């Protein structure tokens, strides 16, 4: 399937429009849920870290440091992409699966359109473009929420929080998480598209494809997360 997906598109102009549409569908329409989850996660990580620091030897700025590390290293890429595998992955698998069982893909093939490329390539490119931006937004939301909740509840001052945020900051960690998000975007879109494209049967099978797409995406994301961490951070 991937060979067909990456063969030269019939009309680049058509594909450009499709990519923009997919950026909207995959990315822009998921911004709300990603922002909401990031805000709450940043707030909760801040409060939990504060609640677990019961030694006077541990400085307060550790709260800001921990929130930053959690949001940048794992939440913004891995957890957000796991969430997106549920939202975006199931959507892709069911959309393409429904097109398969209703012969819309056959119709494209008979016209001479490379259906795999037309349906899947724009989704892959769109996700690989938009996911890093969503990850950056998730980082910003989480860290900002941590600061707001930390200072408003009095568990940490903004000065301490900011000190923790900047303490021993390695810019490569942001690059690492962006690289992960691009890889996860590829996994989610290809795995989901594969399960949708090879759906056989009826509505029941479309549902099964959608479930399989999410499950396989999650498993592969976790494996890729481990491999990338080993390769890039150690």
């Amino acid at each position: 399937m991937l060979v067909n997906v990456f063969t030269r598109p019939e009309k680049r102009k058509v594909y450009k429009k499709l990519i923009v549409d997919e950026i909207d569908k995959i990315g822009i329409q998921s911004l709300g849920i990603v922002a909401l989850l990031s805000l709450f996660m940043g707030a909760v990580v801040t409060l939990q870290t504060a609640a677990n620091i019961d030694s006077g030897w541990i400085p307060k700025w550790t709260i800001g440091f921990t929130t930053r590390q959690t949001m940048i290293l794992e939440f913004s890429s891995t957890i957000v992409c796991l969430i997106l595998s549920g939202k975006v992955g199931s959507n892709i698998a069911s959309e393409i699966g429904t097109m398969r069982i209703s012969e819309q893909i056959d119709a494209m093939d008979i016209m001479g359109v490379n259906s795999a490329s037309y349906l899947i390539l724009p989704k892959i490119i769109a996700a690989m473009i938009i996911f890093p931006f969503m990850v950056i937004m998730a980082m910003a939301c989480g860290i900002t929420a941590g600061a707001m909740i930390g200072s408003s509840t009095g568990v940490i001052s903004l000065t301490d929080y900011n000190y923790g945020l900047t303490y021993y900051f390695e810019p490569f960690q942001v690059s690492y998480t962006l690289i992960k998000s691009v890889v996860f975007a590829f996994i989610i879109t290809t795995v989901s598209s594969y399960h949708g494209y090879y759906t056989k049967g009826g509505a029941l099978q479309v549902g099964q494809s959608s479930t399989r797409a999410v499950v396989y995406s999650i498993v592969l994301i976790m494996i890729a997360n481990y491999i990338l961490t080993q390769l890039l951070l150690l």
Partner: protein
Amino acid sequence: MIEVKDISKSFDGNHVLKNITVEFFPGKVNFIIGRSGSGKSVLTKCIVGLMEVDKGEIVFDGRSFTKMDRWDRRIVRQEMGMLFQGSALFDSMTVEENVMFPLKMFSKMSAGEMKDRVNFCLERVNLQGKNHLYPSEISGGMQKRTGIARAISMNPKYLFCDEPNSGLDPQTAIVIDNLIKEITYEFNITTVVVSHDMNSVIEIGDYINFIYQGELWWKGDKKEILKTQNDELNNFVFPSEFMKEIKEVLRDGRG
């Protein structure tokens, strides 16, 4: 002309098509008929390349489709139009976008020319003014007509219709039948219709090919179908006593 030469197809050892040789003629409505499970849909899918044959050859106007690589096949496919049983319209697109889709993908027309072509095709199937409706907003008959408009938008040389009347009331079915017939004659298209609607066969069929248990059991025109002594074909075309009586009346020129 489409020539199917000695093709066979099996699934897991189950022989669905057995050494079928048949021709489909340009400017004619060629029917493939047969009972459910006889292999007629598989035969059509093999002809259009949605399935690969195990052996044999399919030739489109002297060009061996089976021997082509996928790039050459895509060129031949741009000469094909297909009307699916369930219409297979792209449900995220309007009627106009559906008909325009092949033009956008393959033609070098300007936006204005494409629009004119779409309007011509929609007028041809009596769907003028329905441009901006979605497939879910139109009736089954209109969906079929949109499917025909999309199939003819690229001026196809070959038109395939899979059960074009399924799910339609008898009057709408006749409208669709007549449309297929008119378009075939008007544009000299090689039309292949897969059906078990005998009304369609008698109404618009020029050549009829009867598939029975994966084999080409009988072929001829609609006049010959009335005279045939082939038991399987007779049982298929005239299954009830009432239909057998009608056959006698038609054959004898009575009534």
